[in-house]
């Protein structure tokens, strides 16, 4: 029997009442799909929140049920009543982080590093060296981190490119490819200084809202002016678009209104993209949850891709791949089970190569041997090959 402790989740009463328990969310929930258990379903999690809110006490079992949610928010697109599940789960985790031992010190430290670009770069360099020396056990399933990265250079002042934390430290080549595709439309790309750093998405998911707000303020300061801010990571994009809600200021709302997933922006500028006849075999599009279920702008990826290459749809209604930001590190077993469903869907689709517009999904699927790229890395290589031919 685990110990009870007092807790008040502080979830909006009407939001909590808005679930009619119809269960239509169940098949769209990745953790329900792999467990078939109510405790791992959106409907069940809401019922658990109601229990705790009514009793004013919770226990470690409740924390483990809440922590098992990937926060993919697939339930929100499935919910006919529009239950705001994501914000309810974020509020719950914030209350647990504030009032209980939900986020222990070592985890908080880990999240803090994301907001310290220099330390993150240094640590990444260290991991890269240790990887070359074969001193990092493969069971940690880290991607191969580059030893050296070329610095990105600004090319103008039409749009900003948000570079973020982990993605800039580990996958800057992706940023470089995205930047070239944006530039191919004739736009000049401006880059934020080092101080922009982390968007704070993982902090919000972990319930560390105060830290997320601090990071948000830093990010907003790093992007002066009114030009559009393009994001090539679906998770970061969703977070930047939510700053208005997170901070509740008009300044933050104005910032959020400037944020676009890079595909959204390109989809508005299709006529400016280079015209190329390509005979590439079609590619599978794997929608990141925070692009499809949160930003709801996943169609833009197809509009851009289809200028150059055919796209293959998966048959799983946009079910999560299991990456979920830090989720795959914190819950490796569930994450792998969820991924297995995605791999089966990929196998059924008849394609082989996959594109996905989020670094987390890319890394998580790569670890299972999937041949995967950022959509714009593929577009960039198609454009580059065509240029070479000419």
């Amino acid at each position, binding site marked *: 029997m685990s110990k009870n402790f007092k807790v008040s989740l502080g979830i909006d009463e009407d939001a909590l009442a*808005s679930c*009619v328990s*119809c*269960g239509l969310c169940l*098949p769209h929930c990745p953790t329900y799909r792999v467990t078939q*258990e*109510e405790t791992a379903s959106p409907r069940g999690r809401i*019922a658990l929140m109601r229990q705790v809110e009514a009793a004013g006490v919770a226990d470690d079992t409740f924390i483990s049920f809440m922590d098992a949610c990937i926060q993919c928010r697939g339930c929100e697109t499935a*919910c*006919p009543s529009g239950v705001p599940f994501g914000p309810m789960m974020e509020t719950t985790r914030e209350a647990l982080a504030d009032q209980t031992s939900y986020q222990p010190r070592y985890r908080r430290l880990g999240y803090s590093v994301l907001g310290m670009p220099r330390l993150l770069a240094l640590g990444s360099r260290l991991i890269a060296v240790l990887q070359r020396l074969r001193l990092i056990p493969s069971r940690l399933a880290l991607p191969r981190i580059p030893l050296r990265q070329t610095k990105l250079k600004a090319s103008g002042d039409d749009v900003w490119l948000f570079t973020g934390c982990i993605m800039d430290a580990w996958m800057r080549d992706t940023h470089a490819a995205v930047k070239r595709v944006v530039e191919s439309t004739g736009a000049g790309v401006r880059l934020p200084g080092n101080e922009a750093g982390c968007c704070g998405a993982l902090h919000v998911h972990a319930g560390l809202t105060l830290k997320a707000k601090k990071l948000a303020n830093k990010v907003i300061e790093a992007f002066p002016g009114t030009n559009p801010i393009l994001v090539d990571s679906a998770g970061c994009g969703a977070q930047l678009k939510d700053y208005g809600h997170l901070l509740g200021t008009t300044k933050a709302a104005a910032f959020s209104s400037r944020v676009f997933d890079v595909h959204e922006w390109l989809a508005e500028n299709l006529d400016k993209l280079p015209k190329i006849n390509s005979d590439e075999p079609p590619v599978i599009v794997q929608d990141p949850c925070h692009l499809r279920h949160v930003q709801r702008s996943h169609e833009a990826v197809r509009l851009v891709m289809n200028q150059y290459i055919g796209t293959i749809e998966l048959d799983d209604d946009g079910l999560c791949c299991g990456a979920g930001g830090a989720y795959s590190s914190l819950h490796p077993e569930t994450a792998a089970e969820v991924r297995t469903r995605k791999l089966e869907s990929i196998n059924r689709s008849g394609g082989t190569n996959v594109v996905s517009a989020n670094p987390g999904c890319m890394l998580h699927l790569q670890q299972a041997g999937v041949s995967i790229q950022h959509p714009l890395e593929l577009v960039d290589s198609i454009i580059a090959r065509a240029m070479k031919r000419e």
Partner: protein
Amino acid sequence: MSSKRKKTIFDELKALLGSRVRADDMELQLYGKDSSVLSGVPSTVCFPLDAEEVQGIVNICNRFQRPFIARGSGTGLAGGAVPVGNPVIISTAKMNKILDIDLEDRIAWVEPGVLNLDLSKALKEFGFHFAPDPSSQQVCSIGGNVANNSGGPHCLAYGVTTSHVLAAEVVLPNAEIVTLGGIDPEPTGYDLRGLFIGSEGTMGIATKIAVRLTPNPPDVRTLLLDFADVSDGALAVSAIINAGIIPAALEMMDHNAIGMIEAFVHAGYPVEAAAVLLVELDGLSGAVEAAVETIKDVAKIHNAGSVRIAKDETERALLWKGRKNAFGAVARIKPDYYLHDTVVPRSKLVEVLNQVYQAADKYDLIAINVFHAGDGNLHPILAYDAREPGILERVHSAGDAIIKASMDAGGVLSGEHGIGLEKRDFMHLLFSAHDMFTQDLIREAFDPQGLANPLKILPSGSRCSDSFKQHVPEGVWV
């Protein structure tokens, strides 16, 4: 603690299932509810993986004289899976494999936890589907469909679950495993399969089900007719069928339903209309085309505002998404709902619909109608907020009035949701004491100990002494 301690039922279930048996208080409460308004609390939840494990659980329950209730996806609308009497819940959700697809004989063997839509999706590449399509088909399980003899929009032309299930392997309440029915076209002897389908878990638990595969139609056309007057829409329903057409589906949604659905799907449903009819025609192209013309004529005669024909599969899917998500969208109006499932003769639709609205008005409630008009199967939803003091009594009274109106019109209590706990005490409106006594005899033949989903379907007192009230959990309306 003494090692000689007498083993509890939990100990024995644990020995059988390991971590797949639960008794944590928080988790138990989640299994106290389905999609109806009722709730209770079970003593234990079990997640068996095969028939032998189900048999083991039922054996243990027999030994401890503990009731047991099978549960699929928990989307029932009549409290059929709501625990009464401190039971063991047997979740079939983890038994979710499609075991065999036989295209030549057009049969598939599936486990009960397979989701209805997952089955049709798996059959799609072969050009087949499973015909019963309850609105909750994306989540409801085949086992649940069997338990409730479920219908769905397309059952107007294709028939309900019993027409599509050939056989079932069943763990009987005495823990014996038998196969009811068979895959031969006309099994001899009593149709125990037919008796079992719709028995709501009171005659045993299906552990394997042989379903009939239906070929996908060569052509499909989906039409949306809108009306400024509900009665015109209701009259058009009979007129379509009297014109010699049996549509694959013929659904009606009223003004309130259209509004909440459109807010979710953005399919261009006419939010100003008093009612719409969603009509689907399928079959050979020529016949479908001719039927479309007939329906246009009927629409004109009955004052339809317009006839919209879905131009492609995407538009068709979007219109259906609206219809099939309707119940779940009720919280856009009020956070709770209570609904009935009566069936009335098509000719009485106008009259009974009016009485539904009158009942809602009388008790100051919101009525939402979204239903299978083609077969007269009403689903009047009463939307309310349970936090409002005294509202349950009003909802209850309005519900009673709706039932009475339906029965007076020559209708029946349930089209497809089952009787469960919620509709149980209305059974006497439909059956005489003698009828119910006879039904209880049949039930007892399957379940002499009275452990399989007790106190459901038949009101207590149809046979034995009236002792059920002591088991009834708080919040249950009886």
